C-alpha cells in the first residue's frame, strides 16, 4: 500500500482532471476495475465479493503453516470503536483481506421514522452519531425545513452554526484521543477528554443535555441562548487554541507517530471518490470539497474559512487535515459568536408539521463526512420514507481497500483514522 502515488493525489485536486480518469472506477494499481467490468482478480473485485475472497475455513496444510491465519477482530475488541467485527485473513501479520460484519447496533432508525411524526422523530437522529449529535439534528431539521420550504431565521442559523462547530470540535477531539490510543499513545486521550468537557458544559448549559443534545427544532431553535453564552464560547476559544498546539506537540513531530501513520492506509483521490468516501478522509486525499463551501447550508456562506486538504491520502494526512479543521472551526466560531444578530429564533412553522407530498434530499458536512437525509412525504404528518445517508457507513466500506497488504497494527490505525461511529454505521 505504500507507493500509491497516482498523479491526481499530487496536484491540489482540480476535480475535472480527476473525473476524467475516474471512468472505470478505481484507478489504483493495487485495486482495479478494468473498463466498466468488475475484474474479480483485481483487489476491488475480490473486495466487493467480500465473503468469496476469504474462504473462512481454516487451511489444512499439515506442517509449518504460518500463513492464512483467519482471526476475528471484534465485535468485542479494544480497537474497533464499538461493535464492529472485522474478519482478518492474515499471512503472518500481513493482511490478505478483510470483511466487515456490521449491524450489531442496528435499531431500525429508518423504520422508526415511518411511525413517528416529524417532530417526534427529531430526538432519534441524535442517537445515530452520538458523538456529533448536534450535526445530526441540524441535518434533519434542515431537511424537513426544505420539505416545508421554510427557512430558519438568521439568529437561529448563527446559534446552529456555533453549536455545530463546537460539536465538530468535540467529535474531532474524541477521534484524536481514541486514534492516538489505538496507535499506543495513551496520554492524548486524557487531554482531549479534558478539553471536550468544556464543550459539553456549554451544550449542557444551552439545552440541558451533554451528549444527545436535542438542540434544534424544525424551523429554528427552541431555546434562546442563555445569559453569557457568547462569553462562554469566547472563553472556550481562548482556552482551546493552545490546547491544539499541545496535542500537536505530542504527536505531529513525533518520530514514532509519523512512522506509524505515514503511508499507512493510503487511498488515492480517485478511489476515494469511487468509493463515495467523504469528509476529512476525502479531503486528505487531495479533493478540496466541503459541503459547507460547495452547497452552503445554514449561513456558512457568511463566514470565511479554508478547506484544509492533504496530499498523500495516508493516515498522517488525515490526522493533519482534522487538526487544521479544528483551527478552521475556531475561526468560524469566532466570526459567528461576534456576528450573532438579534431577532427571532424560530421560523413560522405550523403546529402540526404536514409537508406537501414530495421528496427532498438534504445533506450537511458532518464531522465525519456527508450526512444526508432523503425524506419522502405523502402529505401526512409522518415521513412516508426517511433515508439517512450515513458518512461512517460509506467510509467504512473503504477499510478493506486501505488495509490490503498492511499489517495488523495498520488495520487498527486505519479503523481509527476512518473515524467511524458504529451507532451511525448500523443505525
Amino acid at each position, binding site marked *: 500500500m505504500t507507493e500509491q502515488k497516482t498523479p491526481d493525489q499530487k496536484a491540489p485536486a482540480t476535480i475535472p482532471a480527476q473525473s476524467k480518469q475516474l471512468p472505470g472506477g478505481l484507478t489504483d494499481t493495487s485495486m482495479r476495475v478494468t473498463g466498466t467490468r468488475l475484474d474479480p482478480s483485481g483487489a476491488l473485485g475480490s473486495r466487493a465479493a467480500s465473503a468469496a475472497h476469504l474462504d473462512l475455513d481454516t487451511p489444512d*496444510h*499439515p*506442517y*509449518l*503453516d*504460518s500463513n492464512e491465519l483467519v482471526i476475528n477482530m471484534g465485535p468485542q475488541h479494544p480497537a474497533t470503536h464499538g461493535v464492529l467485527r472485522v474478519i482478518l485473513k492474515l499471512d503472518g501479520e500481513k493482511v490478505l483481506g478483510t470483511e466487515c460484519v456490521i449491524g450489531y447496533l442496528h435499531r431500525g432508525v429508518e423504520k422508526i421514522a415511518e411511525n413517528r411524526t416529524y417532530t417526534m422523530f427529531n430526538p432519534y437522529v441524535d442517537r445515530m452519531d452520538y458523538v456529533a449529535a448536534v450535526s445530526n439534528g441540524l441535518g434533519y431539521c434542515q431537511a424537513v425545513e426544505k420539505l416545508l420550504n421554510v427557512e430558519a431565521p438568521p439568529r437561529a442559523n448563527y446559534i446552529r452554526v456555533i453549536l455545530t462547530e463546537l460539536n465538530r470540535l468535540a467529535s474531532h477531539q474524541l477521534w484524536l484521543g481514541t486514534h492516538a490510543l489505538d496507535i499506543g499513545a495513551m496520554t492524548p486521550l486524557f487531554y482531549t477528554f479534558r478539553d471536550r468537557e468544556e464543550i459539553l458544559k456549554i451544550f449542557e448549559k444551552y439545552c440541558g443535555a451533554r451528549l444527545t443534545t436535542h438542540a434544534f427544532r424544525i424551523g429554528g431553535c427552541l431555546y434562546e441562548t442563555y445569559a453569557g453564552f457568547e462569553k462562554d464560547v469566547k472563553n472556550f476559544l481562548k482556552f482551546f487554541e493552545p490546547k491544539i498546539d499541545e496535542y500537536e506537540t505530542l504527536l505531529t513531530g513525533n518520530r514514532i507517530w509519523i512512522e506509524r501513520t505515514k503511508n499507512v492506509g493510503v487511498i488515492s483521490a480517485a478511489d476515494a471518490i469511487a468509493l463515495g468516501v467523504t469528509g476529512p478522509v476525502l479531503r486528505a486525499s487531495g479533493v478540496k470539497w466541503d459541503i459547507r463551501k460547495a452547497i452552503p447550508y445554514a449561513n456558512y456562506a457568511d463566514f470565511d474559512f479554508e478547506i484544509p486538504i492533504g496530499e498523500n491520502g495516508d493516515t498522517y494526512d488525515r490526522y493533519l487535515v482534522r487538526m487544521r479543521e479544528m483551527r478552521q472551526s475556531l475561526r468560524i466560531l469566532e466570526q459567528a459568536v461576534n456576528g450573532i444578530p438579534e431577532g427571532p429564533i424560530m421560523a413560522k412553522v405550523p403546529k402540526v408539521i404536514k409537508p406537501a407530498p414530495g421528496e427532498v434530499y438534504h445533506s450537511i458536512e458532518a464531522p465525519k463526512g456527508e450526512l444526508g437525509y432523503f425524506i419522502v412525504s405523502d402529505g401526512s404528518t409522518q415521513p412516508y420514507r426517511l433515508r439517512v445517508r450515513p458518512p461512517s457507513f460509506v467510509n467504512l466500506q473503504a477499510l478493506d481497500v486501505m488495509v490490503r497488504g498492511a499489517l495488523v497494527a495498520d488495520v487498527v490505525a486505519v479503523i481509527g483514522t476512518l473515524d467511524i461511529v458504529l451507532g451511525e454505521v448500523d443505525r
Partner: protein
Amino acid sequence: MNPVVNSAVNAAAANVGAAPVGTPYFFYGLAAVAILSGLLVITRRNAVHSALALIVTLLSVAGLYLMLYAPFVAGVQIIVYAGGIMVLFLFVIMLVNIERVSKERQFNRIWPVGLVASCLLLALFIGAFAKGRDLLPKNPVPQLSEGINTQQIASALYGDAGRMGQYTFAFEIASLLLLVAILGAVIMTKKKI
C-alpha cells in the same frame, strides 16, 4: 571442553576456594534430572513438551558444568542452547500443527536401522569407557577456583599477550564455518538475492 578443563585443573590446583557444600547430592540430583528429562524428550508425543524437557536437560547439564568449576561453559550453555537455540526451536515447533503430528505413528519404516545404529553407538561408548578408563582422572576432580576459569579459556583460545593461543586457529576456523552456515541459511530462505 576436555583440554580446557584439564588446563583449568593444572592451573587451579594452587588456589583453593571455599569448600563447596553437598556436592554429591547436587551432582546426583542434576544428573537424575538430566536423564529423566532426556527420557521425556524422546517419549513425549507433543513436540513442545519435548522441547521444554530438552531445555531442562540443557540447564541441568549447565549445572554440572558449574560443579566442574567451569562457569564460563555453563554460562555459554545457558545463553546459546537454552536461551537462543531452544527459543528458536520452540518458535518453529509452535507453527507445526501439533494435533496432526501427535496423531502420526511415532516410528516410521526404517526404525530397525535406527535401532541397529543406536546399539552400535552404545557399544562404542561402552568400549571407549572400558578401554579409556585410565584417561579419566583417578582422584575426584580437585577443587579449583572458578575465579580464573574464564581467563584460562580466553588464553587457551586467543593466547596470552603476544603468544598465540593453543586453539586460536581452530577457533577461527570454527567461526568461519558458522559464517558459512549463516550465509547458506540466508541463501536457502531467500528466493532470489
